[in-house]
């Protein structure tokens, strides 16, 4: 059987890969995808704990996190579409103004 520690380490590795992506990439869309990866890594640890305690509350939380992540995806991509209309780029390093 695969132990709880192995599941948690896998989840941690995925989270750290996502964190490196958020810190290094300047393309807004790749940054956004790294964020989604971090959320998924946390979901994996929720499901692992759920399996190892026999309680399904963790899975309910994954369900709710998925709904929030989907909302975040819709809003985030709408913002990037608007940003691209204004600046012709989604490079977050070039964002230095909140006005026009």
């Amino acid at each position, binding site marked *: 059987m695969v132990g709880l520690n*192995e599941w*948690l380490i*896998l989840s941690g590795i995925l989270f750290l890969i996502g964190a490196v992506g958020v810190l290094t990439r*300047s393309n807004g869309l790749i940054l956004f995808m790294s964020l989604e990866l971090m959320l998924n890594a946390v979901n994996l640890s929720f499901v692992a704990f759920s399996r*190892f305690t026999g309680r*399904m509350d963790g899975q*309910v939380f*994954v369900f709710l996190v998925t709904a929030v992540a989907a909302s975040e995806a819709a809003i985030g991509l709408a913002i990037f*579409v608007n940003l691209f209309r204004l600046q012709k780029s989604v490079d977050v390093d070039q964002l230095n103004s909140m006005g026009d």
Partner: protein
Amino acid sequence: MTKRGALERVLFYLFGGLAVLSSLSMVTRRNPLGSALSLVVAFLSLAALYAVLKAHLLFAIQLWVYAGAVMVLVLFVIMLLNLRESESRPQPLGFGRFAIATVAVAGVGWKALSVFAEQTGDAVTVDDSFGTVAGVGEVLFTRWVLQFEVVSILLLAVIVAVVVLVKRRA
């Protein structure tokens, strides 16, 4: 039981390795389209890992919502903006920045992973309703019903907000 445990281990390393490799590919890809396709593979392997953990409902939700809906939205936006053309100015990936961030994250992450490694525990035996629609639904609608309703309001607000955001000004 041991045969089942061995199968579980094989699936864990197969799909866990696939998830790690594809997410590394996602982070390092220059073209956002390649990143998105790598992320689809990562989401699919996570769905397989949920199935190994007997979370059947979440396996389906992962496929529909993440690998399906969210990634279609991301790919749609990437193609709508035609980002490859907009990034014609070649950008260095910034290996200096990459190295610094990797070292910083690894330094913090090492501590967390060493704590994770000490967690012990064996999978408990669960009944047939574990992770099914009926099982998760019962917990959701008895203990977490308020949170469920709050999420429904959030989704409604998001629908309105996205339409307002993307609508072209007349």
